Each structure stands twice: as C-alpha cells, then as structure tokens.
C-alpha cells in the first residue's frame, strides 16, 4: 500500500513537470533568434492567465492565454525588453497578472508572513520548554523536606 502511494506520487510529479514542457511549445511561433524563444518561454512562466487564475499563461490553453502569448511574441519580435512587456501586461490586466507578486505594501505580509509565524512559533515553544524545565528542577524547600520527613517518621 505504502509502495503504491509512493509510486503515485512519483508519477504525478513526473507528469506535472512533463506537462509544462509540452504545453510551453504548443503555439509553434518561429523566432528570428534563439534567445527570443528562451525569453518567450521565461515570460510565459512569469505571467498569470487572468481567466484560469492558478495557471501561468504557459500552462493554460484558455483563448486569452493564447492571445497573451501571441502578444508577447509580437512584442519580442519588435524588440521590447522583458521589463517593458511585463509592464505592458500589468498596465492592462493589473498587478494580478504577475505570477510572482512584487514586494510592496499590500503584499509584504504575503512574503514575510510565513517567517513571522515561524518566529512566533519558536518563541512560544521556547517559552513552554523553559517553563517545563523550571518546574522539573525546582524541588522541595527545606521546610517542605522537614515536613515530608516528619510524615515519613510517623508512618
């Protein structure tokens, strides 16, 4: 059973990785040089499909993703820089179109939240450990020991 789950995991990981590679080259644009094609693939991975929100435009088969890929192709061939192309998309589709959000005021919690939570957790756990240690090392006071002794003698 365990082995089956493991196989399933390996297979799904393989296919996930595989599918992005296959879809990425589906449009068959002919680029005037190889670097443009590489930049095209990179840009496709950096932009989100507005219709199918958890996919990049490289992963998506939605018509709008196809149109945006075509737009990128056209802009690359007309010598736009990567930065210019991304800004073109953000100006029209909003910040949302970046697959990796930029670090700014509304998104800092998104970026640093996990680290903050980690520190809070470490703080709480260390407090708890400290407290439990204190409790185990504290023994009986002299007074209490005497009382204990008395009770033992009485038995």
């Amino acid at each position, binding site marked *: 059973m365990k082995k089956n789950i493991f196989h399933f995991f390996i297979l799904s990981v393989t296919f996930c990785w595989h599918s992005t590679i296959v879809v990425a080259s589906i449009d068959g644009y002919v680029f005037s040089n190889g670097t443009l094609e590489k930049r095209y693939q990179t840009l496709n991975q950096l932009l989100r499909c*507005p219709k199918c*929100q958890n996919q990049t435009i490289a992963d998506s088969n939605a*018509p709008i993703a196809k149109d*945006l890929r075509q737009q990128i192709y056209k802009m690359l061939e007309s010598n736009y820089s990567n930065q210019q192309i991304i800004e073109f998309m*953000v100006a029209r*589709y*909003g*910040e*949302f179109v970046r697959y990796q959000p930029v670090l700014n005021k509304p998104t800092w919690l998104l970026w640093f939240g996990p680290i903050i939570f980690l520190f809070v957790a470490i703080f*709480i756990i260390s407090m708890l450990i400290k407290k439990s240690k204190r409790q185990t090392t504290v023994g009986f006071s002299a007074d209490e020991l005497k009382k204990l002794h008395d009770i033992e003698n009485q038995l």
Partner: protein
Amino acid sequence: MQRFILFLPVIIFLVLGFFLYRGLSVDPTKLPSALINRPFPMFTLPTVLNGDIKTERDLQGQVALVNVWATWCVSCKVEHAYLLKIQNTTKLPIYGINYKDNNAKAQRWLETYQNPFEFSLADQEGSLGIELGVYGAPETFIIDKNGRLQYRYAGVITEQIWQDELKPIIDKLKELD
C-alpha cells in the same frame, strides 16, 4: 502569561474563522481593472454593421456603457435582452465591442435579436480587448463623458447587478456633469 496561553487556541480559532468566513463571500474571479480613471485606449476599428471606421473619440460626449460581446458567448445572449431593456428605459448610449467574432455571424445576431448598441466595433483580432484588459465576454465598462474608464464589470448584467452596482455609478457620473 499562563492565562494567555490558555486562550491561545480560541484566538487562533477566531483568526482562522474570520479569514475562512471572509473567503466564503470573496469572489476570486472579480478582478479590479487596472484602467480605472484612465482614458479609453486608442483604437481605429470598423463597425460590425456597415464598416464605418470609428476611433476612441466617437465614444466621448456622454456617460455611456461599453459592452464586450460575441456570438460564441452563450451568456451574452442572456445579457442581450437586458441591454435592450436598459437602452429602452434609460436612453443611455451603449457601445458594443464585438470581441473575436465572425462578422457575418455578428450581423445576423444583431438582426435577429435587435440592436441595443449605438454601434458595435468589430475587434476580430482581440487587440482592443487586450488594450482593455478583457479576458472573456461579457464584460462591461462605464465611461464618463470625457471617455475615461470609470468602472468595469465582468459577467452578465442582471436586474440586480444593474440596480445595485452599475446604475448608482452612472447616476453619480451624470450628476457631476
């Protein structure tokens, strides 16, 4: 401190509960348009019915609706009836953008189902669509009399959407005139 730790699970529960509850009512497909308060993008496109060439200047002058539609868009058919009603009752100019469509089909559509639009632009390549950040149909924009984009609604306009969401904005823009 001791007390505080006792209440920690309740606090965590409340914080989680707050976000999960909000998550129920937030619509992830509702995206803010990046173009609000910006001038309508420049374009030069022919109309669907007679091929007249129009530019962004032809949309200026009055508060108006710009509606993105297509014959391949099933829900546009539902919306079409309501656009006719808006046009009949309010006399608000409605401009159409016939998005990535076949022109003959679009002409037939307007003849069969009547035409609520002042004119429809034939955006066959979807280039005006990209300029407007359109990612599907139907989508509707409200523009002010200077042709600036003031609001974007993605989805079918219904009586409720019209009364609660769009009409108040249009009334406000008209008051400003």
